[in-house]
């Protein structure tokens, strides 16, 4: 008897969508042991982490507030990942979007006008696009890896933000704190659930995810993205432009990340601060994979990852765990997710040596 891994000819759908659940379960189990090693009460800590965010209306609203940017960014990233474009600088594109959006809000500070918010949306998307255009240009013109350039630009964007809030855009009446003035009403997204921070930006995320789903499943562009990623040779024969796909996926991801940044400053934050996000741009990478690079799956995945953020905050308050514990959970989740993909692609079989000899198949010996 020996253990065999056979490539599957057809991949059952239940497995594709079931493995994320398995990954979540394994992450929780590992978290249990991790907390035990750290000398905490594992049951109680897990409860704080995973259940307490769901107990109150405020918690549920916060969940949507945090899932919003994750879904928006992950949707853009997923399209790029499908085309093998590895934009890992969404955090920087988000920051640029926030800066551009805030620029409009501060330029028209104190003014009325229904057009201010739409203008901020446009500016935010443009800011993110502009930042993503740099790696796109370097990739298509000089074949520079977009992985490293997009990441380096994240550090640059954070420093640009820091210059602005410490210098020209600092609130003149802010006691020297490095932050901008609070935006006035015309530049603030309306709250849609009284008594919480849930704002209209949540609709933008939902809309973007559904639109991206339509794009991927019902349009030629979506098909092109998938072909370029899965079969570059076939794409070339079909006349699909590799460069065009790089530009398209980076600009789209940049625009959505920029929007997410603008929505953060016009929504829950209401001003420009030096620390805009708890790493949404990076977590969105995990969200994209957890959602199986499918925009509808990403909506669910975004909500799951939002729990880890709120759980992390609660654990900080009630269990004195550092906020970073969230990262441990997120990293583990992605590990399990990537590992469980193996089960999707390969069938595990127990087989006697005799049977193998009798029935030759394209199979692979266990390493």
């Amino acid at each position, binding site marked *: 008897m020996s253990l065999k891994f056979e490539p599957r000819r057809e991949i059952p759908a239940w497995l594709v969508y079931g493995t994320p659940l398995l990954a979540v379960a394994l992450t929780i189990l590992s978290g249990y042991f991790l907390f035990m090693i750290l000398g905490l009460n594992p049951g109680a800590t897990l409860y704080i982490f995973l259940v307490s965010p769901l107990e109150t209306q405020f918690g549920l609203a916060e969940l949507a507030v945090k899932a919003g940017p994750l879904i928006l960014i992950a949707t853009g990233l997923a399209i790029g990942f499908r085309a093998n474009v590895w934009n890992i600088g969404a955090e920087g594109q988000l920051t640029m979007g926030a800066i551009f959006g805030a620029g409009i809000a501060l330029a028209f500070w104190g003014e009325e006008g229904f057009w201010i918010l739409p203008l901020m949306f446009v500016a935010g998307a443009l800011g993110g696009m502009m930042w993503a255009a740099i790696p796109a240009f370097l990739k298509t013109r000089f074949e520079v890896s977009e992985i*490293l350039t997009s990441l380096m630009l994240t550090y640059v964007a954070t420093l640009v933000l820091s210059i602005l809030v410490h210098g020209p855009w600092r609130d003149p009446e802010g006691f020297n704190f490095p932050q901008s003035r609070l935006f006035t009403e015309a530049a603030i997204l309306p709250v849609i659930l009284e008594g919480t921070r849930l704002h209209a930006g949540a609709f933008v995320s939902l809309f973007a995810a559904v639109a991206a789903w339509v794009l991927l499943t019902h349009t030629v562009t979506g098909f092109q993205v998938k072909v370029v990623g899965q079969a570059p040779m076939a794409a070339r024969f079909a006349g699909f432009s590799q460069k065009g796909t790089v530009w398209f996926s980076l600009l789209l991801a940049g625009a959505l990340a920029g929007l997410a940044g603008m929505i953060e400053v016009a929504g829950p934050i209401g001003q420009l601060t030096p620390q805009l996000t708890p790493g949404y741009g990076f977590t969105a990478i995990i969200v994209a994979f957890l959602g199986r690079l499918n925009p509808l799956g990403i909506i669910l995945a975004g909500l799951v990852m939002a729990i880890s953020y709120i759980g992390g905050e609660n654990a900080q308050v009630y269990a004195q765990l550092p906020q*970073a514990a969230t990262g441990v959970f997120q*990293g583990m989740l992605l590990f399990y997710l990537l590992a469980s993909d193996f089960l999707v692609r390969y069938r595990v079989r127990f087989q006697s040596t005799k049977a193998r000899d009798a029935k030759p198949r394209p199979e692979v010996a266990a390493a």
Partner: protein
Amino acid sequence: MMDFLVLITVSVVIAATPMLFAAVGELVVERSGVLNLGVEGMMLIGAVVGFGVTMTTGSAVLGIASAALAGAALALIFAVLVLTLMANQVATGLALTIFGIGLSALIGAGFVGMPIAALPKLFIPGVSDLPVIGPLLFQYDAMVYLSIALTVAVGWFLKSTHAGMVLRAVGESAESAHSIGHPVIRVRYLATLFGGALAGLGGAFLSLSVTPMWAENMTSGRGWIALALVVFGSWRPGRVLLGAYIFGGVTILQLHAQGSGGLGMGLPSQVFTMLPYLATIAVLTIISAGPWRGRFQAPACLGQPFRPSV
């Protein structure tokens, strides 16, 4: 003036050493055909474990060894995922970085703000007290010499040993290497673990020597710059060493420019902090753009999964 130049050179070498460790390690990994983007995470784990063990046991040697082990342990997770389970290397590397940042912060929560004695500088009587030459070459701590020795050793290993040749063959064409009987997966496992250990050493040098302390996320992108250095050095140890010292120079330039009030240009300090990141982008572009691009080839199998077919 001479003293000042010596001082600058010494600080450049020290700033470069964490990146040199990590980049030389990653070079070996990439020459075997594996792309591990988790360098930042492995460095952080090395930094926190090196600091923690040194502080609690009082032995820097033990701390440094543990840092290397911790880096290798993290690399093992990566290796199992991408080599045995054939997961996507880019995504797994990112997961490793996210995990490493989180885990190091969790482990290090109790170490924040704790003081520790920096690694002792070596002192060789008769040589270290020579003027200029002494402080320039013979007054570093042992890890600086270790980083250079490892760079030389890796260069020799890749170029002149049979095992090194096998490793390169595995990176250039896994199929061919496999067909003449080389254990592709085992070679890649070993290379990945070695890369993790060196990233761990780089992190430990940061928390034990450059700034003897622990702070969350204290690598601040050095792991990513190390990845860029491998490209910059076109997968050759000597050029990676040169690149690391150039980047060390940029780091020091940046610190001095901030200290001297922006070189008298009145620029905000953040402009100078951007320098290493902008330099990375510029250097990558120059490497990829010029007429010399053909000479800077990545290993042919870099990032591609391999599964032996029987």
